[in-house]
């Protein structure tokens, strides 16, 4: 069943001479793990950010769970966002707060503002946060300051923060680009495992093609803001990638262990 759909999605940054994204038609089904690939500047980040409207698209329509969400603003937009997790390349944790508190912030959109402002969390929420941290191998770290953790650990914390939202969809913008290759693999494995367990749809920007080939069910190829192809991973070939990168692949495009 379709969870997310875009129709003719386009984005032109104000003052930019040409669009960063041009009429993208795309559909994601429940439980899929989809990679978005393309060279730097292809529009991957723009695409992902349009989906939860961190950027407001300038053209086209967005649908989530079958309902149009294109023109949502204020409270309804906020509610939409509570059901979509977002994982950033640089984790975007609050370094001065504890790991546990960082995970709990995932619930800020879903619990009463007065309560969260006073720092009061229900026992059930705290238990869930602990459970997620344990599941991601971080049970010993929960009381440490988030900025005391390694990059891989911080990204796992941000995955836990997304998961505690109980999201239907997770958007991940180059989540492993700041990590070394073995850690990148470990983090992606974890992300894929929990997503499959919970039936969460994942859209993940990757610029290392080998990672996309290894983990994704389906790959979307972008180039200059245009969807070039959209195929199950098994159907992609060397030439698919030559098409979007405009050249033969180099070692740079791969993140080998």
């Amino acid at each position, binding site marked *: 069943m379709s969870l997310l759909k875009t129709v003719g999605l386009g984005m032109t940054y104000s003052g930019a001479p040409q669009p960063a994204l041009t009429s993208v038609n795309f559909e994601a089904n429940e439980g899929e793990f989809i990679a978005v690939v393309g060279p730097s500047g292809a529009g991957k980040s723009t695409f992902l950010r349009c989906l*939860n409207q*961190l950027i407001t698209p300038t053209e086209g329509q967005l649908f989530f769970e079958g309902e149009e969400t294109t023109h949502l603003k204020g409270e309804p*937009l*906020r*509610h*939409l*966002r*509570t059901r*979509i*997790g*977002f994982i*950033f390349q*640089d*984790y*975007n*944790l*609050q*370094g*001065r*707060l504890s790991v546990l*508190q960082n995970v709990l*912030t*995932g619930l*800020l*959109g*879903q619990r009463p*503002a007065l309560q*969260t*402002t006073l720092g009061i969390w229900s026992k059930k929420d705290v238990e869930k946060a602990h459970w997620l941290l344990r599941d991601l191998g971080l049970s010993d770290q929960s009381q440490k300051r988030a900025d005391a953790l390694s990059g891989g650990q911080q990204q796992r914390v*941000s995955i836990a*923060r*997304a998961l505690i*939202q109980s999201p239907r969809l997770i958007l991940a913008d180059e989540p492993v680009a700041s990590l070394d290759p073995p850690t990148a693999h470990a983090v992606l494995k974890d992300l894929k495992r929990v997503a499959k367990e919970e039936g969460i749809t994942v859209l993940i920007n990757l610029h290392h093609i080998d990672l996309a080939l290894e983990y994704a069910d389906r790959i979307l190829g972008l180039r200059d803001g245009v969807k070039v192809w959209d195929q199950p991973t098994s159907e992609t070939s060397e030439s698919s990638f030559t098409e979007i990168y405009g050249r033969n692949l180099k070692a740079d495009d791969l993140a080998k262990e």
Partner: protein
Amino acid sequence: MRKHLPLLTFLGLFIWASLGTGVSLPKFVEGLGDMGRFVKEMFPADFSEVSAVWPDFVLTLRMAWVSTLVGALLAYPFALLAAGTTTTWKSINGLFRLLLNGVRTVPDLLLASLAVALFGANPSAGAVALTLFSMGIIGKLLFETLESIDQGPLEAMTALGAPWIARLRYGALPLALPQFLTYCLYVFEINIRVAAIVGLVGAGGIGVWMNINFDLGQYQKVAALLVTLFLVVTVIDAVSTRIRKALAQA
């Protein structure tokens, strides 16, 4: 010619201002003798009454501390609303920036005079004036901090649908709060000096005694008050600087 325009403009301004203020080296040299005699008249300082007015020294310190703290508490909401990182509503930003800048344009003694007119010649008037004064300084410092904080956590809060107040509490405050005490101590140091002066317009504290002794021509007593104030300020500055350094390392 174009290259020298700023310099020429400045020279022109300087000459115009010098003529307007009647600056004259001979007059200054001529006056040195009088000034020397006047300063000499202040010494030896007469400390006989310092212990009697000691409570007013304490009052001056209390005034400075309470105003710093209340000013800081008021400054927080203002700065949060003025900074573009924490409040994305442009016209609100503009309004609160204007208010923060506006408060800082009013001289401290004028604020104190107005407070005396409204609340009478007592320490609460001084406290009100100093509170507004502190709010202006802390508000500006905090505003600048907030404008330059890491946007990442705030963006994450937006992405997960956190309401405005939660964004502030978890996205901005953890980054701005550690500076709270540092700013308070810094402004406290400034405030002690100002608190000593607002007494000149009747707003309480040790300045009241300086004013009285001055009018009575008791310059040696004025000197004693100044020396004591100097010692108090020096000790507090030293302690405060130490605490600030320790906070910066923590």
